[in-house]
């Protein structure tokens, strides 16, 4: 760190801290309101949403720390709505909605709402939120069409549009939206949860304005932005100048078998940093493309995992950072390219490319090997035989995370660029006609390493309805999560199916003759068919032959690692029978490890 003195002088730093905490508290209050009232488990159980407070120019001042995947959209989407509409065209009580990924949205299901806050007729600030709606129409139930070739197949696209006009619902817009969603009642509940959250935010920001006045509050906001910028600059200045590069790819786009490469270089110059993706492949035909904000989000998230973890997340943090993602590449989709999977699959890929492969060259002790690195989106819909009602659900899965300098990777965790929770089996089966046979950790799969990769999960469930239409959008079926510094790769994703009465599982690809094993839409399953979802495990960190044999023994005792792998991957020979207690055979282990090292050399 080159900065030895505080980043700036002459301002009321204590007052600033207090104000920032209060604005964060407002975001948290808005988030609570949303979580407790929403209909979709993905945002009530899963917390797949963000809440925002913005200054009168529409710049992000604070956001509730819930879903980092929405960082890019949080930074830009509201700002752009406000600029496109023009601040003078807002009125007290208005709410605008939009979900346009070409205008700052991350993908169509994520809807942003923004409302102005006035003080005696003077525009003072904005409040906003972003939430993932479970069903918004398009070619497949759950609105995650892995075989879409344009945005129009992905669901209903809404440019910045007034949803409330001076406090009154704009009924025509509501009717158009609900008429295009498969589960309109669910949308009705979720959209209201978003509105309620904004109303909570308006009241609380109103309190701040009463205390400080419109100008006073906005001047203080400006200082909060300056502070975040100074914080980022001081952290970046601590990195050695240079150009660091890395690449990874998306396995396929659901339309053809070809992979798409992301080529990234990070240019560090003084206290500024450029992410340059201009050498990446052209935009894909299928929906794995990223809108600009997703690439930006991924880049910043990767950075925040290793630098400046405590920086106030607001519009100030992007000032010393530039993201170059030319339109028409896979890193910035051009209209009307599809992009629903960019947010869930492409974002974690870039993020880990940044933090694991590139920044690990500078800060190895802060980096980690690859996680399973897919959201493993599994969508389904149909008519519930128990009540005759249409349902649809967007399901995701936890996975193993990569080993890191300090410890093994965690098992069964949500993909690192999000922070959602799973849906409990008991809620799952109460809401939708499936019966689970298994939901467990996937043994003996974590990438071997001095610090082992975490384990993925296995979910087996049987169709209880007459027909369920399923779709998937996933990754890591052809290329494994990578290990780091000599750690082994983790294991891959699998999506399999067995017909009623049979235990012979085959991949969806084989069973239904699909182009992609991980991306497909509208497969009809019948009562008694079973689905087996296997999520990937994390890569290992460091040479597995350096792993403490006692840890390998503990893993074998708990079943996380098999006795066979203990020998073949870790060079650890165990003695004894499982029931009587195993011990490490020190001599045999030393000998085996020696020969394995020689074999490698």
């Amino acid at each position, binding site marked *: 760190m080159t900065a030895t003195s505080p980043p700036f002088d002459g301002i009321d730093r204590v007052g600033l801290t207090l104000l920032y905490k209060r604005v964060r508290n407002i975001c948290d209050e808005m988030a609570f309101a949303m979580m407790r009232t929403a209909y979709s488990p993905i945002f009530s159980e899963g917390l797949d949403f963000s809440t925002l407070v913005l200054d009168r120019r529409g710049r992000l001042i604070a956001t509730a720390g819930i879903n980092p995947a929405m960082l890019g959209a949080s930074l830009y989407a509201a700002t752009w709505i406000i600029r496109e509409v023009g601040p003078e065209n807002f009125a007290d009580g208005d709410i605008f909605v939009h979900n346009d990924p070409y205008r700052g949205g991350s993908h169509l299901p994520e809807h942003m709402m923004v409302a102005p806050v006035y003080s005696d007729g003077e525009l003072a600030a904005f409040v906003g939120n972003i939430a993932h709606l479970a069903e918004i129409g398009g070619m497949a139930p759950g609105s995650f069409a892995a075989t879409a070739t344009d945005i129009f197949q992905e669901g209903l696209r809404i440019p910045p549009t007034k949803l409330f006009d001076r406090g009154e619902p704009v009924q025509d817009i509501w009717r158009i939206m609900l008429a295009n969603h498969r589960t309109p009642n669910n949308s009705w509940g979720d959209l209201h949860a978003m509105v309620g959250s904004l109303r909570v935010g308006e009241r609380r920001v109103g309190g701040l304005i009463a205390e400080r006045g419109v100008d006073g509050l906005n001047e203080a906001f400006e200082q909060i932005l300056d502070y975040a910028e100074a914080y980022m600059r001081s952290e970046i200045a601590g990195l050695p100048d240079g150009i660091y590069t890395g690449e990874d790819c998306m396995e396929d786009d659901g339309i053809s078998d070809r992979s798409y490469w992301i080529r990234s270089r990070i240019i560090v110059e003084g206290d500024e940093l450029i992410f340059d993706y201009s050498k990446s492949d052209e935009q894909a035909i299928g929906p794995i493309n990223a809108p600009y904000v997703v690439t930006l989000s991924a880049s910043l998230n990767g950075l925040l995992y290793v630098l400046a973890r405590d920086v106030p997340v607001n519009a100030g943090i992007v000032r010393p950072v530039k993201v*170059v993602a030319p*339109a028409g590449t896979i890193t910035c989709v051009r209209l009307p390219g599809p992009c629903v999977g960019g947010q869930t699959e492409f974002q974690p890929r870039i993020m880990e490319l940044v933090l694991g492969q590139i920044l690990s060259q500078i800060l190895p002790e802060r980096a980690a090997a690859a996680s399973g690195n897919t959201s493993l989106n599994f969508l389904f819909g149909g008519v519930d035989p128990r009540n005759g009602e249409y349902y649809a659900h967007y399901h995701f899965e936890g996975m193993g995370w990569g080993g890191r300098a300090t410890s093994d990777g965690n098992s069964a965790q949500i993909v690192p660029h999000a922070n959602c929770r799973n849906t409990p089996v008991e809620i799952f089966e109460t809401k939708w006609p499936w019966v689970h046979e298994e939901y467990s950790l996937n043994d003996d799969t974590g990438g071997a390493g001095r610090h082992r990769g975490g384990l993925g999960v296995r979910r087996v469930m049987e169709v209880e309805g007459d027909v369920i239409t399923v779709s998937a959008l996933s990754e890591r079926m052809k290329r494994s999560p990578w290990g780091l510094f000599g750690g082994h790769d983790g294991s891959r994703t699998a999506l399999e199916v067995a017909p009623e009465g049979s235990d012979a599982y085959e991949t969806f690809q084989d069973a239904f003759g699909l182009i992609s094993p991980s991306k497909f839409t509208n497969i009809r399953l019948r009562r008694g068919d079973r689905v087996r979802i296997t999520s990937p495990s994390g890569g290992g960190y460091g040479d597995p032959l350096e792993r403490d044999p006692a840890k390998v023994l503990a893993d074998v005792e708990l079943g996380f690692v098999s006795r066979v792998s203990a020998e073949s991957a870790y060079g650890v020979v165990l003695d004894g029978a499982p029931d009587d207690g195993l011990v490490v055979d020190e001599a045999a282990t030393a000998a085996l490890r020696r020969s394995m090292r020689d074999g490698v050399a």
Partner: protein
Amino acid sequence: MAWHELNKNWHDTTVDYCDVCGNLLIARYWSFIEPDGGETRRCCDETCERLFGRLRRLEESAAES
């Protein structure tokens, strides 16, 4: 090397991108002509013009070495 209005009809729902960074252009844009008589570029602001030059120089020095 000047600001321009991005005049779009209200019923035009398409979008425009910065030629340098890929970010969205809204309401107005900054234009500049590539050095050595190249194309006219539309971008976010002067920062993106400078960024263009910086990336170009990096490109050239990489080619030399």
